[in-house]
C-alpha cells in the first residue's frame, strides 16, 4: 500500500508539465485523463463502492432478507458493541493477526536472511515452492488441515512418532488449542506470500552494498540489519497490510475447519456476518458488524502505513 503511495508521490504530475493554455480546451484536456479511467471507475463504483454504501445503509434496518424491513436507526450498532460474543470474536481475530501476520513476516525475513547473502542458483524454484500455498484455495487448505489435525491425523501421528503420546488430541476440538491451531493454518498459508515478497524485494538490492558491508568486516547478522532490512521496508509494509487484513477479515479457514467451535472459541467477525445474514436472517445486524469490522481494518491499515512510511 505504501509502495503505491510512494509511486504516486514520485510520479510527475502531467498537468503541471503541460503548459496551461487559456480557454476551455485546456480545462477539457485536464479531464481527458479521467476518460481513460472511466471504465475501471464505473466498474469499481458499481461493484465495490455502491455495495459498501448499501451495506452501511442496510445496517440501519431490522431485516430478515425477505420480508419488509423496519428502520431501527443505530440500534444494530448498539447490539454490536454491547454483545460480549461479538467482542470476543474481534479478540479472536486480533489474536489471529499474530499467526497470520507477525509469524509469517518473521519466517519470511529469516528465510531471506539465509538466502540473500549470495546469488544462488534455482532461486525461481524456491520462489515457486514458497508461493504454492498461495495458489491453493483456502477452502482446500482448510479441509486438508482439518484432516491433519484429526484424531488420527498427521499431526498426532508425528507426535506419537516422537514419543509425545500424552500430547496428542483432536486439536480443532480442544477449547485451549483450537484457535492457535487455526492460526497456524494461516501461518502456513501466509508465510509463502511473505517470503516471496521479500525475496523479490531483496533482488533489487545492489550486490555491491553487500560487498561493501562485508569489506567493513560485518557478519551475517550485521549485514542483514544494515542492508537487507532497510531495503525491505516497503515490502514489509505491504506484507503486513495484506496479512493483517487477511487475519481480521478471515472467514474461509475458520468456516471450513471449526465453524467457530468448540463452543465459540474460534468465532471471528467474518463468520458472524455470514451466520447472521444467511442462516439467522438478521441482515441488518450482520451489515452493522461488517461496517464496524471494515472501520477497524481501515484504522489498523492506516496505522501500519503511518508506522512504516519511509519518507517523513
Amino acid at each position, binding site marked *: 500500500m505504501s509502495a503505491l503511495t510512494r509511486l504516486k508521490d514520485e510520479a510527475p504530475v502531467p498537468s503541471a508539465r503541460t503548459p496551461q493554455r487559456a480557454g476551455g480546451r485546456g480545462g477539457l484536456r485536464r479531464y481527458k485523463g479521467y476518460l481513460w479511467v472511466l471504465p475501471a471507475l464505473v466498474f469499481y463504483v458499481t461493484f465495490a463502492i455502491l455495495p459498501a454504501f448499501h451495506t452501511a445503509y442496510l445496517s440501519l*434496518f431490522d431485516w430478515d432478507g425477505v420480508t419488509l424491513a423496519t428502520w431501527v436507526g443505530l440500534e444494530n450498532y448498539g447490539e454490536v458493541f454491547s454483545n460480549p460474543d461479538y467482542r470476543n470474536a474481534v479478540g479472536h481475530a486480533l489474536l489471529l493477526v499474530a499467526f497470520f501476520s507477525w509469524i509469517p513476516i518473521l519466517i519470511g525475513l529469516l528465510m531471506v536472511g539465509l538466502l540473500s547473502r549470495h546469488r544462488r542458483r534455482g532461486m525461481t524454484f524456491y520462489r515457486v515452492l514458497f508461493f504454492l500455498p498461495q495458489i491453493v484455495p483456502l477452502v482446500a487448505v482448510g479441509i486438508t488441515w482439518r484432516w491433519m489435525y484429526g484424531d488420527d491425523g498427521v499431526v498426532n501421528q508425528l507426535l506419537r512418532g516422537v514419543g509425545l503420546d500424552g500430547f496428542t488430541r483432536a486439536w480443532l476440538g480442544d477449547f485451549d488449542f483450537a484457535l492457535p491451531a487455526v492460526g497456524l493454518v494461516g501461518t502456513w498459508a501466509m508465510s509463502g506470500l511473505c517470503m516471496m515478497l521479500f525475496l523479490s524485494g531483496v533482488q533489487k538490492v545492489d550486490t555491491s552494498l553487500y560487498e561493501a558491508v562485508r569489506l567493513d568486516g560485518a557478519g551475517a547478522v550485521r549485514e542483514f540489519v544494515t542492508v537487507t532490512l532497510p531495503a525491505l521496508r516497503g515490502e514489509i509494509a505491504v506484507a503486513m497490510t495484506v496479512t493483517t487484513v487477511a487475519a481480521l477479515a478471515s472467514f474461509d479457514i475458520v468456516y471450513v475447519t471449526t465453524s467457530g467451535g468448540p463452543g465459540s472459541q474460534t468465532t471471528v467477525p467474518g463468520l458472524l456476518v455470514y451466520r447472521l445474514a444467511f442462516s439467522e436472517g438478521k441482515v441488518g445486524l450482520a451489515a452493522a458488524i461488517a461496517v464496524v469490522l471494515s472501520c477497524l481494518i481501515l484504522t489498523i491499515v492506516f496505522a501500519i502505513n503511518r508506522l512504516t512510511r519511509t519518507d517523513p
Partner: protein
Amino acid sequence: MAKTRLIRAALAAAAATAVLAACTPGSEDAGSDDSDSSDGAESVSTEVPDEDATLRLAFVDGPEMVDELIAAFEEEYPQVTIEPQFTEFTDYVASIRLNMTSDSAPDIAQFNVGAMSDLIPSGHLLNLDPYSEAYGWQESFPSVGLEQLTADETGKVYGSGSLRAVPAGMSLTGVFYNKELADEAGIEIPPATLDEFEQALEAASEAGHTPLSIGALDSGGAHMWAALLNSMMPVEDYRAWVTGEAGGSISTDEALAATEKFTEWADQGNFNDSANGTDQEASTAQFVDGRSVFLMNGNWAAAQVADEMGDNAGFFLLPGLEQDAPAVGSGFSVSYAISSQTEHPEAAAAFLDFLASPEAAEIEAHGGFLPPNVDAAPEAEGVLGDLNSEFARVVEADGLNVFPDFSAPATYDALSSGIQSLIAGRMEPQAFLDELQGIRDEHHEE
C-alpha cells in the same frame, strides 16, 4: 485540488445514499398473481394440462434419487420436463431465499425450515391446502410427515395451519451397534430402557472399548442430546417448544435431567475422547472400524455401515425411561415446496402427488431414505431392515420429533457450540437450556 476532490467524493457519496434511501429493503408481498391462494378456498384441478411444461427443481439431498424420481414421473407425464438444480447443503441454505424471491425462482424447491420459513409470510411459497384436498394427501402421506410441514401464516409456528410442502423421504436418528463387540461385552440388544442402555455403556467400557461414538465437531452431538430429550422429556412439551407454540419451554425439569445425563455421559467417558474434534463422518468411520460399540447417527450413515459391516451391525432407537414408553425418534423429511410464482402449478402439484406412490417409495428407499409411506417400504435386511422397522414403530406411535434446531433460525449455532461446551464441561446444563430458550423467545417476539 485535494479539497475539491474531497467535496466531489462527499457529494457522490451523498447522492448514492439518497438513491439507496429511496427504497426500503425487502418486499411486502410477492405472490401478487395469486394473492387469494392463501385462504385455501379456491378449487384446483388435479388434471395436468396437455401442453408442454418445463419445471425447475432446486434441491440439496440425494441427486441420484431425484434423477430417478424425475425419470419415473416424466414417464407418466410425458408433456412435463423437470430440470434438476443441485446445490450443496450449506450453499443451498445460504442462497435459497434469494433464489426463491428472484424473478427466476425455481418452480419446486426442497423445503428447509430454517432457511425458508420467512418465505411463508412473504408469500413466496404456494399454499398447498387446495391440492392436498384435491389429491387426498391426508390419506396418501402419513400424518407424521405432513404435520412437520404444516405452518401458520407467520411461518414461525409449525404443526398447525396450512400445508407448505410434502415429504419425499424421511430421516431418523438412533443408535447403531456392533454385534460382535456387544456380544463380547455381554450386552443384550436392544436395551428395553434407558437404564439398560446405560448399563450397556458401562459394560462396553469395562470390556475396554469406547462405548459410544458421536461427531460433535458438527451436528452429531446435538443428535445425541435430542435423542436423550426424546427419551426423557414428554413429547408434547418438546413439540410445544420446538414448533413454536405459545408458552413452549425447553427450560423444564425433564429437559434439565436429560441435559445433565448428557454431561454425565461425557464426564464418565462414554463418548469418544475427542468427540469435539470429530465430525459425523469420522465418527461413523471410527464405528465401522470397530473402535466403538455404539454410534449415534442417522439413516444417512446406514448405507455405509451396511456396506462395510454387513450382518455385524444393527440399529435401535434410544429407549425411553419405561419399558412400555412410546417409540420416539428425531427425524425430518426431504420435502418439496412449490413457488408461488410458478406458471405450472398443476404440473408441480402432480409431481408432489407422485411422491406418495409406491414407485416413488422404492426409489426413496434405494436412495437411503425412509419412504414416508411405511407400508410401501421394500423389504430389507440387517441394519437397513432394523431402520425400517424402528421407523415403522415411530410412525405407529406418532413419535417423530423434528430436530431441535427448528425452534429458531439462530438455534443451530448456539446448539452446536453449546453441546461442545457441555462435553468439555465448560457450561452448566441450566445455562445451556436458558440460552436456547432465550433465542426461541426472541425469535417469536419479533
